[in-house]
């Protein structure tokens, strides 16, 4: 007897907010193009149920000075460009980045703390080298972030950079800088739905429009808390689609940084033989982390290895095909 299966569809009422990074000359910046994320009306890639008007995008991480602490696998893959942020940004653009993420290391090549003048010079160098939208991250300590990101915001006024980390400790300073100079912020909270929502409320209370806010739910790499990030992102996305306006921000995940920090992507020797060869293991660690987080709602994945960038590009195209 023929059977007719009725495909179950959720009646979502909410929409993820659209956020545009970068500003072209028409819009007061110097970018050759802008990029927009968000706008979904369903869970990741469920095209039978809703719209995904903007596909997730790839950020490529570069740093303001030589990344001495990077895995040898990464240093080998990138070669000489890691000594020159301008060359590095150009190379990242060639490899197919949608946005460039400039990470300020906090100390310069000589081990001295990065000054605000150096940070301002770095962002100008990168903006001069690439026409892509740029995301800037400070060293990750609230005080240093405040000092350097304010300088960056001033130096790149009108470019619609995304600035971070913007956390509960320093959001006032970062949001004020974004408001004053026409940028976006990346609101970071420690793997927690309520804290993420609360920070969005605080930022919104300062009158920064929510279409200038990305959420960083804090990325746990594979084997290092990935499941917490995965579930918090699913919960945030479900809350957003159910209509909670303070969780509807697109999400950015620092996949490369977290994946390549772990022993599994750094250690070639002194590890069990069951771990396999270091290069393939490290790249797979990043591919698996990126894929799992795309499936749970990432709108921007920031990557490090050129091979991963290719694989994730193909993955996003496959997931968007329908």
């Amino acid at each position, binding site marked *: 007897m023929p059977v007719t299966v009725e495909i179950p569809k959720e009646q979502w009422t909410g929409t993820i907010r659209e956020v545009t990074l970068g500003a072209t000359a028409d819009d007061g910046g110097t970018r050759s193009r802008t990029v927009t994320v968000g706008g979904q009306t369903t869970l990741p890639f469920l095209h039978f149920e809703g719209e995904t008007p903007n596909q997730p995008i790839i950020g490529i991480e570069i740093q303001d000075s030589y990344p001495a602490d990077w895995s040898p696998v990464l240093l080998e893959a990138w070669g000489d460009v890691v000594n020159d942020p301008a060359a590095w940004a150009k190379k990242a653009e060639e490899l197919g980045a949608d946005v460039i993420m400039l990470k300020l290391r906090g100390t310069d090549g000589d081990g001295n703390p990065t000054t605000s003048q150096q940070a301002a010079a770095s962002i100008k160098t990168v903006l001069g080298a690439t026409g892509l939208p740029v995301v800037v991250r400070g060293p990750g300590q609230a005080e240093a972030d405040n000092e350097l990101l304010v300088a960056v915001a001033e130096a790149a006024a009108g470019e619609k950079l995304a600035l971070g980390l913007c956390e509960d400790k320093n959001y006032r300073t970062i949001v004020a800088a974004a408001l004053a100079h026409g940028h976006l912020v990346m609101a970071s909270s420690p793997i927690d739905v309520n804290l993420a929502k609360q920070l969005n409320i605080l930022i919104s209370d300062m009158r920064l429009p929510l279409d200038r806010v990305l959420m960083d739910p804090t990325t*746990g790499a594979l*084997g*290092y808390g990935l499941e917490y990030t995965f579930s918090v992102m699913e919960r945030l996305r479900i809350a957003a689609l159910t209509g909670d306006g303070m969780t509807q921000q697109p999400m950015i995940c620092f996949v490369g940084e977290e994946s390549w920090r772990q022993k599994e992507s750094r250690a070639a020797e002194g590890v*069990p033989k069951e*771990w396999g060869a270091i290069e393939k293991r490290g790249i797979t660690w990043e591919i698996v982390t990126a894929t799992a987080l795309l499936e749970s709602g990432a709108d921007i994945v920031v990557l490090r290895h050129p091979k991963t960038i290719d694989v994730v590009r193909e*993955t996003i195209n496959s997931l968007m*095909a329908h």
Partner: protein
Amino acid sequence: MAMSGLQIYKLLPKTNCKDCGFPTCLAFAMKLAAKQVELDACPHVSDEAKEALSAASAPPIRLIKIGSGDHEFQVGNETVMFRHEKTFYNQPGLALRVKDTEDADAIAAKVAEVSNYCVERVGIDMTFNSIAIENASGEAGTFASAVGAVRGKTSLPFVLISDNADALKAALEKEGGHKSLVYAATTDNWETMADVAKAAGASLVVRSNDGLDELAELTGKIKDKGVENLVLDPGSRDLAGSLAQVTQLRRLALKKNFRALGYPIITFPGEVADSEEQEIVAATQYIAKYAGIIVLDHFDPAVAYPLLTLRLNIYTDPQKPISVDPGIYEFNNPTADSPLLTTTNFSLTYFSVAGELDGSGLPAWLLICEAEGMSVLTAWAAGKFDAETIAKAVKTFGAGDKLSHQKITLPGHVAVLSGELEEELPGWEIQVGPREAVDIPAYLKTWK
């Protein structure tokens, strides 16, 4: 339709005999309503009650057991769409596929590598579960001898892949009674395939290339022939299409209680992809989203380890985070002069701190205290991470014996414990470290 615990209770013997393993009939009824146990656990239930209950009490996704002895694994019986709603229970079985057209020595080498592969993470041994053998030759004799040869190398269960019922029948005779899975019944061959599976007592995959309507029709017919241990292959071989299908199947089973599609799902990442990397991507998607069995076409430890780690992560119970064992952990070959840090046994806390210690490249000892799996601030607030706990851990694990100094570094968030800890640990210098793990490398560089 699903029945409530109280409705079910009315049909039970109400003797509270405990033979089901639960203290009362009501407790058992509640578990039945939550679809966490099978009615068979009650030996005294009447036939009428059984009939009334079996429809309502069966798990929405049937539990399928594959393999025998130590190599048995079970899939299905899932109750939620998202792991945060409860947990995912039964990890998908991972299999490697070989083909009967491959050189016998090459097959033997692959099978030995996969069968012997075992990698440890957070104290848990992770392994592959199965070998898939495909009748690529189309010859029944070739298939049976390949299956016999592989059986000589491993006691893992098989996924036996052929569209030839006679070949499967012959292969099942060589399979050795390890409860393998037969692939696959389709609209063309379902009757003979059902007979073969039934005769061998094997579970059977049902495949449709024409969508869920045909799939549901097929499972109904096969069930009527007496084969109930079914696994679904809904047909899609592209990432987006198969994500849609597995999501729809899970929703139909859980939200609509749609019995005809309430079975675990088998997937083939290598058929989604034209590169090994895309096979990894597809396998990642299937581990995260709803697969019961995942048949891979490549095996490399550098890929197996990350995929097994992902499976462990996704199937961790979110309500009971894995806590790490209390004790002293070593990073970068510490000596008696290296610093000693301490924190709680919450797994995420441990992994954050361990990641930074490891990544710093500097030698250190880390004392993990028993704090009921809570993070630093939560445990401190709950009185589970106090001076007494830390002092006890220092003594229990003989921290002093490993060191030439008597210094211990507290997490910055609990600097307030310094005074009390000095009293608990006379002669020790109590140091205060950073509040966040990310600042540990900088702290270690200046540690004295």
